[in-house]
């Protein structure tokens, strides 16, 4: 039982925060977003050079053997600075999935390339009509002589438009909602039959809609075993959720700081508005939420690597539930306490609020995760 960071972790966090404070300013970020590229080569390369893209990969693949706590530290710092780089998509989701479920050859081909910053990837799994259900997969993969032929449409593919390679979940057997029969494939983004529509998101990220029309892949494009991809998919999404939780905690902290500063500066009726008791208690509640969120983010990070599915799922969904609720309260209160300024594009608080809102929608909203823990309660008791 120990909640302290190691010396290495502390150093990592310090240097990352210093880098972001100096190099990833509000104006710089705005320019990156307005460029429409969806990623900034300079920033990405700097992250690679800091070793961040390799941190959680095994040492034999140019990694540093880090764990969920390391991802947490990175994502928390990203959340504070609202970094829009494809770290979640490339490193956490795709990289993590290959690390945990890929063959040696796949790891060899992919992990060092991610680590060096050359390769961007994305996980294409959600589908229309599924909402947050991971097993709801209609994309078909037909076994043929050359391997598999993929047909279907994927949505909400974070940074899908920037990836050179995708991981695509598809159905090799079973009905639409069945956990059995799902297979994971590596698909080149420029393969014939892949069409990608790239969208900006409200919070400066990118998302894509991906159409697969008779896309041919070879048998060695399969990650893990055919029909049995669900476990790896679910674990990757759980790691993604843990990462989002950490990002939200960083953004909540930043919202706290922005709000404390604003309310102590801004005067109304001749006094700083931070003197009003109602606003003080509102900030105290924000602080409590942020602290509770931090506890759950640590729990999620600690559980994310686990193969004990029930325990991992419980921690992850409990964390996302409470952090979503906290992010909503902190986000809304932060904007409210900024008054009219809070709803303008000029204010940092507005951007934090938008990201916190989008995090809540990603990979399951509060109700979704409440239903997960609630229904698990029933099973556990039976």
């Amino acid at each position, binding site marked *: 039982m120990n909640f302290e960071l190691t010396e290495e972790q502390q150093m990592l966090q310090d240097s990352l925060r210093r880098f972001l404070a100096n190099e990833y300013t509000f104006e710089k970020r705005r320019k990156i977003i307005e460029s429409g590229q969806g990623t900034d080569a300079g920033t990405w390369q700097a992250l690679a050079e800091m070793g961040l893209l390799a941190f959680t990969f095994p040492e034999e693949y140019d990694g540093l053997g880090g764990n969920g706590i390391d991802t947490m530290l990175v994502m928390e710092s990203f959340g504070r600075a609202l970094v829009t780089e494809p770290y979640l998509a490339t490193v956490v989701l795709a990289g993590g999935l290959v690390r945990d479920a890929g063959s040696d050859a796949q790891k060899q081909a992919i992990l060092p390339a991610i680590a060096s910053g050359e390769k961007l990837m994305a996980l294409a799994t*959600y589908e*229309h*009509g*599924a*909402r*947050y*259900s991971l097993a*709801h997969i209609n994309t078909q993969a037909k076994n043929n002589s050359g391997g598999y032929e993929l047909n279907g449409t994927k*949505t*909400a593919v974070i940074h899908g438009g920037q990836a050179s390679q995708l991981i695509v979940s598809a159905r090799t057997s079973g009905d*639409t*909602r069945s956990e059995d029969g799902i297979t994971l494939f590596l698909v080149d983004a420029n393969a014939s039959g892949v069409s990608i*529509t790239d*969208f*900006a*998101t*409200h919070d400066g*990220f990118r*998302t894509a*809609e991906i159409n697969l029309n008779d896309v041919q892949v070879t048998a060695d494009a399969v990650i893990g075993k055919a029909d049995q991809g669900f476990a790896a998919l679910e674990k990757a999404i759980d790691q993604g959720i843990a990462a989002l939780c950490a990002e939200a905690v960083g953004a909540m902290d930043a919202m706290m700081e922005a709000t404390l500063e604003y309310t102590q500066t*801004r*005067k*109304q*009726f001749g006094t700083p508005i931070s003197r*009003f008791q*109602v*606003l003080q208690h509102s900030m105290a509640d924000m602080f409590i939420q942020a602290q509770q969120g931090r506890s759950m983010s640590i729990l999620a990070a600690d559980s994310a690597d686990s193969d004990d599915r029930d325990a991992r799922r419980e921690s992850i969904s409990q964390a996302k539930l409470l952090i979503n609720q906290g992010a909503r309260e902190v986000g*809304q209160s932060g*904007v*409210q306490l900024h*008054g*009219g300024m*809070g*709803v*303008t*594009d*000029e*204010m940092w608080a*507005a*951007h934090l*609020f*938008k990201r916190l*809102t*989008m995090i809540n*929608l*990603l990979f399951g*909203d509060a*109700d979704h995760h*409440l*239903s997960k823990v609630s229904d698990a309660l029933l099973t556990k008791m039976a």
Partner: protein
Amino acid sequence: MDLNYTSEQEAFRQEVRQFLQDQLPDDISERTQKRLRLTKDMIVRWQQILHKQGWGASTWPKEFGGTGWSEVEQLIFEEECALAGAPRQLDFGLRMVAPVIMKFGSQEQKGQHLPGILDGSVWWSQGYSEPGAGSDLASLRTTAEREGDHYIVNGQKTWTTLGQYGDWIFCLVRTNKEVKAQEGISFLLIDMKTPGIDVKPIIMLDGEHEINDVFFDNVKVPVENRVGEEDKGWTYAKYLLGHERTGLANVGQWKAMMRRLKEIARQEQDDGHAIIENPRFRDRLAQLDAELRALEVTVLRVLTNSSGPGPEASILKIRGTEIGQRLFELAMEATGQDALAHIPDALEPDYDGPLAGSMNATPAAGDYFNMRKLSIFGGSNEIQRNIISKLVLGL
């Protein structure tokens, strides 16, 4: 106590409904209901249709070209308009400056300004708020110094909604610095084409341009454009603020949005079923539905209460804005991850590019973001609670 509408009121509702069915253009109605952008032309077109019917100003007395309707009739009209997908009329002219001109303006001001408001040809902006003032309106610093037949106006107004389209702006300006904050203020009508006025967009958090900063640099305003007496502008502004008893509740708009939300909940899918079938989401909807019903009854209680407007407007403002914000939050949640994509062009007429998910998702997150303003603008909900505790509870 009788909670039913009278048969006359029911007949009136039918008449309004029939009119809307016949006269409200489909393109306008569809875009309004789906919460896509309307062009300026669409809004003017609709105001002109209403004006032709004699319904251009539902809240005005007949002598100025209004309908002379009772408050309950106004409520019915607004509700039917909202449910039919009629665009909101332009409040700044019709409901904010016009009542002040009608009550305190000169004969010339009435003749000059009311017709253009009624037919939608002249758009008004509000020049009350100033940077850093927030809910503390009386702290304003924009000055108007008398120079012969003119005032020379200098200063800055902000949060000027639709200022980019404004033909005229009504402003509170300081004409006397020697007296207490609220006593040296005058109410001016200013032609926005006057030299020295500069309108600069403020981009909102949803990326949209609906509000503005307005700068005044030695702007010459004829003295006859002052409404009422010099230094008494605060009284007129307060009259205007207190004029609306129930408008802040926005019941008609929210009932329309509730209907839209139920439609979205039938269309959006959750693991292959309509999300309305998900009991958790449905419970949130049912909870809000009940709250909206309570708001509606409260509005009717206030409207049919024989005593005049009072601080109950603060309750309606608080509950109205909370319910409105929640409606848009649920609409966003219903569309899930589809709401991530930001495709502003898709809000424009004739867009035929790609969408991320259904059309329901297109305005969802932007609307949610935008509606955070509801609990801030027009006296924040914290200020409203101060008002309740001081004026109603006597604390």
